[in-house]
Every structure is written in structure tokens, then in C-alpha cells.
């Protein structure tokens, strides 16, 4: 077994291209659980948590975009400046695990695992993030909706590294809300992200833990976009209820050890209404 600890993206990419079956390790908060439980064998490991390019982020005020390196941790994303640029993602970051988990766990690892319960994923879906990959075949970028292909399945090919995600910096309210059995350190029973684009009059809602992938809610989004007054922060109660009902209907939950499908669907309605009330305090 060997563990490589590259500090540059070139070195990480070359190491992985030379050994495409090597395991990519970021914070280890998903991977090491599997290793400890003997569900996953690791032989050769490439640790990316010291790769300078993956640890960086950049804000481009001209294109109004933010590019976040794959090895940026949740404890970094939960605070300023991310809180101002991408509030829904920062709020989601704050709900991940515990301080220990957030210090180690990364946005790239959340994408690598691609659990439908990954808290980073509904905001990335609602922000229409672009996921950047690099590998033996060169670089490519995919919309989040094409990146996540199923529960714990994504479009990353063997030998590819997730390098970063790019998200727009939008004007308008955002939020992330989740329910679970505790207030902290809990996997979401259901999670909802709301992102508004006040300049375009657009609204995006994305649901986590209630389908095989993160689900968008076009009907609910259309109701809010048509009825909301962004400048006044106003959304009439009947429209808000109709949107929450449409989000409920968009969920495709299953019964499992964490929750019944019926409860998950109910939670989606409650969380959607809650986020809309916060975003549009006046009815």
C-alpha cells in the first residue's frame, strides 16, 4: 500500500492517471467509515487534502460566479464569505455532521459520494452548479444535473478527479432546511434548498433525500416566480401553499430505516413553506 500526498493539481492528476484504480481520499469522512467497517479495501491512496488548487476558491465579480475547489471543507463554507455569496450552500454546510466532520469533510467528497442525503447537493442543484473534472482524457465540466446519475452514482470516470464547482452569485433570498431525528449530527430525512434570482425573476427549489437523485420542482418554481414580488419580499399565502403542495407532489420518497415515504413527503411540504416564508416575509 502507498499513500501519495501531492500538493499540486498536476501531481495529483498525474498520479491518478498513472494508477486510475487508486482511491482518492479527501476528508475521509465517508471513505474511512467504509474502510473501518471493512466494506472497502484501500490499496493505493491519493490524498488530495493538500492540493493547493483544490483547497482554493475564487470569486469573479465580473461574471458573478464563485468557483470552489473540491477540497474546501464544510467548516470553511459555513462562514463568511460564502454565507454572503451562496447562503443556501453555507446554510447546508452548517448542518453537516458535527464540527469534527465539517473540519475534515469536503464539498468534493460530498459530490464523490453523491448520496441523495448529501446536504451540499440540493443547494448545488438549485444553484445549477457546474462540476469540473480532470483526468487522463483532459478536463470537462458538467451541469450538476448530469453529474449525479443515481443514488451514490455519478458521472466521474475512473482516473478522474473532481477539481471544483462553479456557482453563480445571485441577488435574492436563499435558504436550506432539513429535518432529521436530532438537531445536529444527523443525516437528512428530507432537505430542501431554495435559490432566488431576483434579477431574472427566477426561483429554484431542489429536494434531497426524497428521490434517487436531487429533484427539482419546476411546477413549484413556476408558481413562486409568477406570484412573488421580489422587491417587496411578498408572496401571497395561497400561492405559497400551492408551491409547497407542488413541491410535496414532486417528491419521490421511499420507505426505509430512516423514515416512511409519507413522512418524507409531508416534511418536503413543511420545509418548502418554511423557506418561502423566510424568503418572502410579507404575504
Amino acid at each position, binding site marked *: 500500500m502507498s499513500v501519495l*500526498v501531492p500538493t499540486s493539481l498536476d501531481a495529483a492528476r498525474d*498520479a491518478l492517471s498513472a494508477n486510475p484504480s487508486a482511491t482518492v481520499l479527501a476528508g475521509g*469522512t465517508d471513505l*474511512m467509515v467504509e474502510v*473501518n*467497517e471493512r466494506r472497502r*479495501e484501500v490499496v493505493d491512496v491519493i490524498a488530495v487534502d493538500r492540493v493547493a488548487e483544490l483547497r482554493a476558491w475564487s470569486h469573479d465579480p465580473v461574471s458573478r460566479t464563485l468557483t470552489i475547489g473540491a477540497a474546501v471543507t464544510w467548516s470553511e463554507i459555513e462562514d463568511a464569505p460564502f454565507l454572503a455569496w451562496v447562503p443556501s450552500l453555507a446554510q447546508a454546510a452548517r448542518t453537516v455532521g458535527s*464540527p469534527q466532520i465539517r473540519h475534515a469533510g469536503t464539498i468534493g467528497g460530498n459530490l464523490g459520494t453523491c448520496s441523495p442525503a448529501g446536504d451540499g447537493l440540493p443547494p448545488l442543484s438549485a444553484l445549477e452548479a457546474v462540476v469540473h473534472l480532470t483526468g487522463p482524457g483532459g478536463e470537462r465540466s458538467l451541469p450538476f444535473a448530469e453529474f449525479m446519475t443515481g443514488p451514490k452514482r455519478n458521472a466521474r470516470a475512473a482516473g478522474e478527479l473532481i477539481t471544483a464547482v462553479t456557482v453563480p452569485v445571485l441577488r435574492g433570498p436563499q435558504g436550506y432546511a432539513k429535518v432529521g431525528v436530532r438537531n445536529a449530527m444527523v443525516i437528512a430525512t428530507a432537505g430542501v434548498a431554495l435559490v432566488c434570482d431576483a434579477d431574472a425573476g427566477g426561483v429554484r427549489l431542489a429536494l434531497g433525500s426524497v428521490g434517487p437523485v436531487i429533484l427539482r420542482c419546476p411546477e413549484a418554481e413556476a408558481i413562486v416566480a409568477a406570484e412573488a414580488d421580489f422587491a417587496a419580499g411578498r408572496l401571497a399565502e395561497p400561492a405559497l401553499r400551492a408551491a409547497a403542495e407542488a413541491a410535496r407532489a414532486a417528491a419521490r420518497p421511499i420507505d426505509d430505516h430512516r423514515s416512511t415515504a409519507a413522512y418524507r413527503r409531508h416534511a418536503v411540504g413543511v420545509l418548502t413553506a418554511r423557506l418561502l416564508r423566510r424568503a418572502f416575509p410579507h404575504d
Partner: protein
Amino acid sequence: MTEATTEMYVLHVNGETREVRDAAPGESLLFVLRERLGLMGAKGACEQGECGSCSVLVDESLVCSCLVLAASAVGRRIVTVEGIAPPGAPTDVQQAFVDAGAVQCGFCTPGLVMATHSLLERVAEPTELEIREELSGNICRCTGYGRIIDAVQRVAVARRGGGA
């Protein structure tokens, strides 16, 4: 680029250079600390990041050592509860845990002491809610947390200059 092989790699633990030889693939830092380096302070219970009893500092960041691949921590500064104070001279946090009665069986205590040091580095005067949130990754089966929160508050008050 650093390369660690399981035949031999070097960790920096509590200010010392420690060699790890003939390790098995996939060994966690918790395992290496306890089973190879004889440092029993960090405790292992869940080995899935849930209980926090294995909390240590890696480059000043509080993490679960059960989720750190030991060989990937080469070149990092690792501090365990053994490394925060010499024997017989507890830190203010350790003393406050004793004084407040925040230790019963003691299994969670090393992790909570590390978490409390980390918390007070970042937030000098945490509210009760902040303490609860910051310590949410450390589970205690005995105390009911009241006295642990009390201990954290005592340290914050004492560091501020003693008065209430």
C-alpha cells in the same frame, strides 16, 4: 509530493517524531495512536465519526482520528490529549472538568477536552447554544451534559479575568 508506504512512515505526534512500521493498509490514526504508538488518550467507540471520543487536533483542526487515514497524516502536526499538558499539570479545561463534576466514567472526557480547547480557541465566550452546537460531535452517556457545559463556561469566565 510526500509518499508514505505501509512499511514505514513518520508521524509528528505531540511534538515528537514517531515511526510507524509494517502497518496494514487502511489503518486509522486512532488505531495507530493506540495500538502502535501506545497513546491511549484518544478513545475508540463507534469508529464512524459519531461519538467524538477519538477527537484529536491535526494541524490545529479538531477531527475524529478514527476517520483519518494514518498514513495520510504524514507531515501534519498531531496533538492528542496526552500532548496538551504534562502529567500532573492539567490545563484549565481539564481542571474545570474535574471541578465541575463533568467527568463520570471518563470515557468521553479526552475527546470533550480536545473539543473544548478547540471551541474556546475559536469562540472565546460561547453562549450555551454555541457550546451545545460545538460539542454536538461528542457523545457522553453519563453526565447529561449539564456539568460539561458548566465546565466550559467556567473556563470562559476564568480566561476573561475571573469575575462573573
